[in-house]
């Protein structure tokens, strides 16, 4: 449980860095690090399948999408970034205060265990996940396919070249 605590602290720190990073590229890399930490946490909680998805899709594919988007739009020059950073930090320093307040409230209201054990698993997780995904929750799969198709068509329409005439 102590290792889980360290990983969660690391994940929150990476998320904070993603928000406060000076450039968008560094923010995207910090987000990938947070995703990797979450994948590690999921793996430690006996969820290897979801951990692989989180690592490959969230830490990999989504980071590639972000970096491709940043390189396509080239939002700011380094001089503009430096000029905007001070103004942006003014907007974002209350976040640190807000996080401190939330932490104090949670510490006052909840009792945190030093360590603990989760309930035992009922059976083979991989087999159960396979059965659940393909048999019990088929509508979820159908919804995923519909969403993927909607995403593909959405991207195709957004990148469609406009007719000059």
């Amino acid at each position, binding site marked *: 449980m102590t290792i889980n605590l360290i990983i969660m602290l690391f*994940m929150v720190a990476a998320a904070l860095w993603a928000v406060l990073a000076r450039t968008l590229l560094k923010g995207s890399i910090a987000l990938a690090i947070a995703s990797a930490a979450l994948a590690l946490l999921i793996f430690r909680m006996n969820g290897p399948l979801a951990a692989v998805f989180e690592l490959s*899709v969230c830490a990999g594919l989504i980071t590639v999408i972000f970096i491709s988007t940043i390189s396509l739009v080239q939002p700011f020059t380094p001089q503009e970034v430096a000029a905007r950073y001070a103004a942006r930090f003014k907007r*974002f320093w209350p976040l640190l205060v807000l996080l401190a307040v939330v932490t104090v409230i949670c510490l006052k209201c909840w009792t945190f265990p030093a360590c603990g054990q989760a*309930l035992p698993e009922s059976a083979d997780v991989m087999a159960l996940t396979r059965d*659940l995904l393909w048999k019990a929750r088929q509508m979820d799969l159908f919804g995923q396919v519909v969403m993927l198709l909607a995403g593909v068509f959405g991207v195709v329409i957004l990148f469609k070249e406009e007719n000059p005439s």
Partner: protein
Amino acid sequence: MNGEFSSLVPFFGFFAILLFVIGLYCVVMSRNFIRVLIGLEILTKGVTLLIIAAGYLTGKVALAQTLAITLIVLEVVVVAVAAGIVIAVYRRNNSLDVTQLRKLKG
């Protein structure tokens, strides 16, 4: 809910709340379109953490995994379409500042 489960809920819930607060603040306060998406991603990470932690603590990891996989697929579709919108907006306005998007203002 047994005692062990209820005592472990704050342990994971606290960090999920922290992630949620960071993501929500980023979505609300950012003016850059891409940073709004980063905030949305952080929000989703908090939700994923809660789902997996709930499955782990109740002994229903398989169900939590299926829900997390569904969430991840939806997340990537949302980010891909939003990235397309970001590029389209940039081509049209030459800016990523969300406060300058006034064309849809009703």
